[in-house]
């Protein structure tokens, strides 16, 4: 049932996590102190490049009846929309560039080229998602309320259509996000969800803001621009729809690769209660996933290929995430923590697998939410690197259950499992990364063992069957002899 105690899960003591938090604070301060003209030039140039690409794309589409123009214009517009969405809209709205004091490049004034309004997105994303990252029932971005992305959530029959819902979400991602943000805004404002009766529940302020923005966006891409290009209206319309689709698919892929590959852990509300700043950092590290990207792909993803760094420091300028990631990796090595990353294809396939697997009810799934690929908990290590606290022999032997009731497991770990944690001689640390390795081996061994047992049982059964068969044949033969003898004597 997801992680309830991040210290135990991470095999780190409270003071370790405190120290980790301070090291991350230092990384943050170093970046903040070195921000200057170089960074400002980066964002100004990115904005200029995006505007030029968009203008060029729109202009090219005036000739969109010609195939080359359609392809070029659509490509330019798609790239422009992706940059606007990822590197500009997302990051500026995070306040990554607020330090510049530029009123036009500021989180309070930026409006992005998406159907949802920046204000509603900020409410849902900057607050709910980044504060409560991956906490069950608190972070609504866990599956966006549409997909079951962890078996911590109860299966419902509707989840059977999840594979189809996934495709729809990917294609219409901006609408999914917009509606998701609208709902979150209403919840935060205490505005009732829309109902036909009484009608005032439809004409709420968030609803009006939503339709104002969405209306403008739809009018621009699907009415005004096609109309402007006159005889080419049909091909322009197709081009605009394609560019929006491309942007949606890419944004969807980036988000899913950042949050749903195996290794991006989930947490319970118990963990969130009394969470320290260090634990918050750790939750962000363990809850996110990166994907490998060169400079070009990183740029096109809004540097969200560095999702871990983004979640640690959501308001540091994105152009610094690459250098931050080097330091974060060093910390992961130092504290023996996993740094979840992989190729874009691999990370997406892992998320894709989870979407399809979790469409099925739990009884069809082999693993539980303590040791599944998409979610696990400290119980995964029970009897391996942690005490087996489900009435296991180990516990009884060491009389640890009473102790555990009063103390937390990481303190217990420090005292009773000296092979874990910092080695006083070598200075090396054995922590979560090693524990995951051992758990993996142990699970494999367990599986192997089960298979072996099964094989043996099967063999035994087969043998038994054979013996019985032989017996029967013998019996039949004997019977034959008997009947033959009988017949002869008759």
């Amino acid at each position, binding site marked *: 049932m997801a992680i309830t105690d991040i210290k135990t899960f991470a095999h780190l003591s409270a003071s370790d996590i405190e120290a980790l938090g301070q090291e991350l604070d230092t990384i943050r301060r170093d970046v903040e102190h070195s921000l200057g003209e*170089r960074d*400002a030039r980066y964002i100004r140039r990115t904005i200029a490049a995006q505007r030029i690409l968009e203008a060029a794309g729109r202009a090219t589409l005036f000739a969109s009846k010609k195939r080359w123009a359609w392809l070029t214009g659509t490509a330019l517009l798609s790239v422009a929309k992706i940059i606007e969405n990822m590197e500009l809209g997302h990051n500026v709205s995070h306040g990554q560039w*607020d330090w*510049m*004091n530029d009123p036009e490049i500021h989180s309070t004034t930026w409006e992005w080229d998406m159907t949802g309004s920046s204000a509603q997105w900020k409410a849902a994303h900057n607050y709910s998602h980044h504060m409560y990252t991956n906490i069950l029932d608190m972070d609504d971005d866990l599956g966006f309320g549409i997909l079951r992305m962890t078996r911590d959530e109860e299966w419902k029959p509707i989840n059977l259509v999840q594979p189809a819902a996934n495709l729809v979400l990917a294609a219409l991602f901006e609408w999914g996000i917009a509606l998701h943000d609208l709902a979150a805004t209403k919840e935060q404002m205490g505005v009732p969800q829309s109902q036909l009766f009484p009608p005032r529940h439809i004409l709420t302020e968030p609803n009006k803001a939503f339709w104002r923005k969405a209306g*403008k966006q739809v009018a621009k891409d699907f009415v005004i621009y096609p109309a402007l290009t006159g005889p080419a209206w049909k091909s322009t319309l197709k081009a605009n729809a394609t560019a929006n689709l491309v942007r949606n698919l890419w944004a969807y892929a980036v988000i899913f690769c950042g949050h749903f590959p195996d290794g991006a852990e989930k947490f319970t509300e118990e963990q969130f209660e009394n969470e320290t700043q260090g634990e918050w950092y750790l939750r962000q590290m363990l809850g996110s996933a990166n994907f490998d990207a060169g400079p070009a792909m990183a740029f096109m993803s809004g540097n969200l290929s560095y999702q871990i760094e983004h979640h640690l420091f959501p308001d540091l300028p994105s152009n610094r995430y690459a250098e931050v990631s080097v330091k974060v990796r060093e910390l992961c090595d130092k504290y023996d923590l996993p740094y979840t990353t992989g190729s874009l294809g691999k990370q997406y396939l892992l998320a894709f697998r989870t979407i399809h697997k979790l469409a099925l009810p739990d009884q069809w799934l082999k693993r539980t939410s303590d040791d599944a690929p998409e979610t696990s908990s400290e119980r995964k290590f029970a009897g391996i690197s942690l005490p087996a606290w489900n009435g296991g022999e180990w516990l009884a032997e060491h009389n640890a259950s009473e102790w555990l009731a009063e103390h937390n497991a990481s303190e217990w770990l420090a005292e009773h499992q000296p092979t874990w944690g910092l080695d006083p001689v070598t200075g090396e640390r054995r922590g979560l990364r090693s524990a995951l390795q051992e758990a993996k081996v142990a699970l494999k061994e367990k599986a192997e063992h089960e298979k072996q047992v099964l094989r043996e049982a099967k063999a035994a059964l087969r043998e038994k069957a054979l013996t019985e068969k032989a017996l029967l044949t013998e019996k039949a033969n004997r019977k034959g002899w008997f009947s033959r003898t009988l017949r002869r004597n008759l």
Partner: protein
Amino acid sequence: MASKSGGFSVRGLREWLEAPVAEGGNAGRTPLDALRGAAARITTPLLPDDYLHLVNPLWSARELRGRIVEVRKETADSATLVIKPGWGFDFKFAPGQYIGIGVLVEGRWHWRSYSLTCPPDWTGDATNKGRRLISIAVKAMPEGFLSSHIVSGVPEGTIVRLAAPQGGFVLPDPAPSKVLFLTAGSGITPVMAMLRTMDRRDAVPDVLHVHSARTPDDVMFGDELRELHDRRPGFTAHLHLTGENGKFALADLDTVCPDWRERETWACGPLPMLDEIEKHWAAAGIGDRLHVERFEIERNATAEGGTVTFAKAGRTAEVDGATTLLQAGESAGVQMPFGCRMGICQTCVVTVTGGHVRDLRNGKEHRAGDKIQTCISAAAGDCTLEV
């Protein structure tokens, strides 16, 4: 939008066309608003200006901008900046008002307020004749980061941001028949705009200007004052050099300007001087004849500083007792509401939701629930602001 009667009106159509720029821009109206508004429907959520200012930085009324066209040394430590404003700037300000100016230094925009020194609708002089311009004068303050930067190094051609002219320290039109100006140091700048306006309107009444400066070399606009003194019979410039004679004593007014009680007076200079003048005028029972501009904040070092939390922005800043909450917020990247930055316009007012805040001008303490001006308040221990 159609008019109320349900019919169709030109004005209604115009308003409908201009709607997107009205909601998206910060500047005043421009002659092209209808066109910009129409174009905004295809550039939504941006304005056409967001594309146009890539071509020319001044082609934007989303934010007021300007280009420095001339930097003219006035004294060793002061300079006049002649600025060509971009779209949407209102040239019909009142003489004596100030503008906000934002200058980019090392990637960060720094905002300050300076008095306009030119008359309204000024069309430049000498090299810039015939262009619609504005000018401000800046004196480098010993610890003033931005004023030093501007006076010593801002190159011509630099793009700056502007905030619309504001302030109530203004000369009425027509000017009163008897005027007294009392200025010291850079306090002369708003009065310069008033003098130039009267001169341009060819309507210089009986004006006596008492200006204090340390040495003759420290007098800003010295040549111009002398020239005006010679050319305009109604204008008398009285220069008081504090380096030789010490501070100007208000008791001397009776000799320098025996009829000061009858004059409408504008005073601008350091705070102690203004306090003294206010007392003097109040004692004479003519406080209503006096206009003062407090452009300098006297910083009491009694506030002890602390951690300021900006609740909505989710940011914090460690500050000392002399840093204003506005500066603290801006250095932490919080979009703070601001106006004059000198405690007179009330634009920057926010609510304190926790802790204590001290007013730097009078040392008065504010507590949670009070609304305070961030530009003249500092943290008195840890505090939280609702911004």
